[in-house]
């Protein structure tokens, strides 16, 4: 018997066995999904993919096809370990099929060849992707391609204690008018410092508890750079912008806050739970956080009258150069180059289904995030939630994202290191800015415009 004949025989035999069992037509996929920065309140980031798999299987069954999808989920509560895991797994060819990460990772990861552009697999003209907010789709795009589907949106409001404002002489009307004054630039960051200093002097809050910014590195600090007129990226050239004056003013603001005694010099690197506990206990005068913190405060830290306890607004302007602002940092579903093209296509379809307004609203409302698409306003769960609605109306229109740029991480690291140095007083503000400048110059060369 020739080799060919043998091969034909065995193929035929296999085909008969497969046909008899009916398994030949069952498509089986195992799709892995990894998500960073995901806690107890945001499990729908990965659970939505599982729900989508169930729907896709049912749709296939209706068409008379057999589709069997196993979703393997893994979440990380922080970002450091998650990004390390993704990048190292990608190097060894074992990255997950679906990655849920910050949109700023699109730049470096697409350059490294870790990602497939999701627009090659899904139709942004069709439901449910056609109702996504355009600005969020733009945030998920880089180099002329749409790489990801927005998973959530948020903004990072500024909060002040209503009770403590009243205790230093604010009337109820004045408290209600404060967000408007902040938005117009009438009430600045330095006015806030004066108010919280008064709170401390009058014994309303303890010393060093007047102003409680974010305890560690995060997108939030770019808001203060913007408050002093800083631009992260030059619109015309698309290059990163190192605005020396804005950075100096921003560092000076935090150094002044330390000098006034409203925030400790050793504040950065503190503990999140302590911070949440103090917010819930109304121990701070002013602070800033994320829209999603509301659900944490209510579920884990016992805040029962959120709207009665605190005001929320944009981050105030720092001086006449800047404006009140807030940053949105959408997470995106990304498809990796791991696995076959078919697996990528299934993964992308799951992502599209997971972006259905009803499914996404489960995540948005439970975790205090904002809608990714206009249709969510018609989903009762979302529409009837006071916080998501108010935050969507009052904050989201003024929110801007951080840039998608492969080099932004270097700028970010330098900005934060300089901030730490100025804040703790290990360097003067001027030295800290110079240090940050030399770090971006040596790291990025011509890739950044120094202003």
């Amino acid at each position, binding site marked *: 018997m020739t080799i060919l004949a043998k091969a034909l025989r065995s193929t035929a035999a296999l085909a008969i066995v497969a046909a008899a069992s009916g398994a030949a037509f069952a498509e089986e996929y195992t799709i892995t999904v990894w998500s960073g920065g995901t806690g107890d309140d945001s499990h729908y980031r990965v659970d939505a993919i599982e729900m989508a798999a169930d729907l896709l299987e049912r749709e296939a069954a209706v068409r008379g096809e057999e589709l069997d999808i196993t979703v393997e989920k893994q979440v990380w509560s922080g970002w450091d370990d998650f990004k390390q895991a993704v990048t190292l797994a990608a190097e060894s060819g074992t990255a997950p099929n679906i990655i849920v990460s910050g949109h700023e990772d699109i730049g470096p990861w697409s350059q490294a060849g870790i990602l497939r552009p999701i627009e090659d697999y899904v139709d942004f003209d069709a439901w449910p992707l056609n109702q996504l907010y355009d600005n969020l789709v733009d945030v998920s795009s880089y*180099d002329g391609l749409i790489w990801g589907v927005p998973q959530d949106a948020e903004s990072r409001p500024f909060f002040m204690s209503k009770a403590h404002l009243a205790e230093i002489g604010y009337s109820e009307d004045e408290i209600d008018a404060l967000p408007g004054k902040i938005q117009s630039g009438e009430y600045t960051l330095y006015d806030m410092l004066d108010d919280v200093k008064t709170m401390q002097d009058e014994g309303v809050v303890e010393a060093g508890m007047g102003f409680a910014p974010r305890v560690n590195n995060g997108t939030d600090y770019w808001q203060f750079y913007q408050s002093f007129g800083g631009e992260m990226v030059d619109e015309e050239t*698309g290059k990163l912008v190192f605005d020396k004056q804005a950075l100096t003013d921003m560092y000076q603001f935090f150094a002044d806050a330390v000098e006034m005694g409203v925030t400790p010099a050793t504040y950065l690197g503190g503990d999140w739970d302590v911070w949440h506990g103090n917010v819930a206990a109304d121990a701070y005068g002013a602070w800033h956080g994320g829209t999603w913190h509301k659900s944490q405060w209510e579920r884990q830290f016992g805040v029962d009258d959120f709207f009665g306890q605190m005001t929320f607004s944009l981050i105030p302007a720092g001086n006449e150069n800047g404006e009140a602002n807030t940053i949105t940092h959408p997470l995106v579903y990304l498809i990796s180059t791991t696995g076959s093209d078919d697996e990528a296509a299934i993964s992308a379809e799951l992502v599209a289904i997971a972006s259905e307004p009803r499914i996404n609203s489960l995540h948005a409302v439970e975790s205090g995030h904002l809608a990714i698409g206009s249709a969510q306003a018609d989903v009762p769960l979302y529409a009837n939630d006071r916080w998501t609605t108010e935050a969507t109306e009052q904050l989201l229109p003024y929110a801007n994202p951080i840039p998608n740029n492969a080099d932004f991480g270097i700028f970010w690291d330098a900005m934060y290191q300089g901030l730490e140095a100025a804040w703790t007083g290990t360097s003067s503000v001027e030295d800290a800015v110079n240090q940050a400048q030399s770090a971006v110059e040596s790291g990025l060369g011509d890739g950044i415009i120094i202003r």
Partner: protein
Amino acid sequence: MIVSNTTSAERGIRSSALTRSTEPATDTVRAARKGRARTSPLGLVMLAPALALLVAFFFAPVVLTTIFSFTNMTSATGISGGAYVITPNLLRDLEWQGMAPEAAQSLSGETISVDEAALERAAAAGVDPDFLEEIEDELLGDEFDDARSFERELKTLPSRPRRVRDLKLAAEPFSQSILNTRFATRDEAATAIASIAPDLSAEDRNTVLSAAYTGWVWTTDNFERLATTPETARLITNTALYVGFTLSLFNVGLGLFLAIAIFYMPKTSGTIFSVLWLLPRITPVVLYTVMWKWFTWDDGFLPVVAENLGLPAFNYMKGSVPTAWATIVSLNGFIGASFGMILFSGALRAIPQQQLWASEVDGASRWQQVRRIILPQLRWPILFVTCYQSLSLLSSYEQIWLTTNGGPGNTTNVWALEAFRVALSNYTGNLQYGYGAAMALVLVVAGLALSIIFLRLFRFNELVEKPKIEF
């Protein structure tokens, strides 16, 4: 004498040789007497596992670190090599750097033409003939500015593929754009450029190709950056302080104190005492650091005690620079102290008791015994602990990472922790493998240099030379 000085490996060789015949053994002895090297294939075989481990866990990492440190590898360039990708951003940057706009635009052509050639390419790519027929009927001769508008037209045709992915694959042969295509080699990219922009000058083509490479390149920038950034000086100072304080106060100072204290204690209580001091070393590092958090945190043991005593009570681990330093030095020190304690205890037992008895007869106090008899005879163990522990502290970062994480405000950051953060773990996910490797290489070189200095300073040769008298 020869027998007493052979190493266990050599003894192994000889005993196995003896089982075969006495002749080779005699040869070996003779060879040794003549000063020739005594080697046997079996010896090499027995050494092989150790050599393999040494190569795998020391030489290979050092070689790789050296290679990485001379590259600009990051999470964006990847480790395993790059591709050639011409992107809209790249063309804009090139234009910004002075490339003629026409040259850049000639590469950015994204126009899609539905012509015979395109239909042939699509047929060759296996696109469904019915669908192709419809495209030919409806769209032949049409031009589209981008893929998206072409796909929108395709979606109106009845025989279109139902899966989005299949529709996109069917549309691909119609586009001749090279934008965002990953070419594996420079030649492939050059060919593609030549086909779409035949008039591009060789110089421009080379500029585009070099800029289009997404992978890493060789560079010495990492070392220049280390030499010029002010952060370097601060990290060196912090590292020196960390190693210096931990070593002098705890690894040697406390270790010595404990060993001498145990030496003078009754045997049973001494044993219990020394076991207690071993706890920090045998406790898993994560558990140990969590215990330190409970110990120093806001409502932890120390602040609560301090509050009751009317002393300043706050988060000692992160609340102030001096207490953060005290925390990292002592939590590392308590681990290291037990190492010194065990070594010094062993060395203390080797001191002839008669010397101590004689000193007591002469009326020496405990302090005089320690100063005149014990310390001079502990010189070697002290030097060994200093040498060994300073190298180990130099490269340690995990306890700092798990507690202060370099804070407050980067004030307790040390070289090894910064190298780890830069290369492998940071909030922005901007992992700079090349720069981090350069930092690690500096650490390896500093460690080797220190080893050589210690060996010279402490006259290691004298320590290991043959005894002057035979035992």
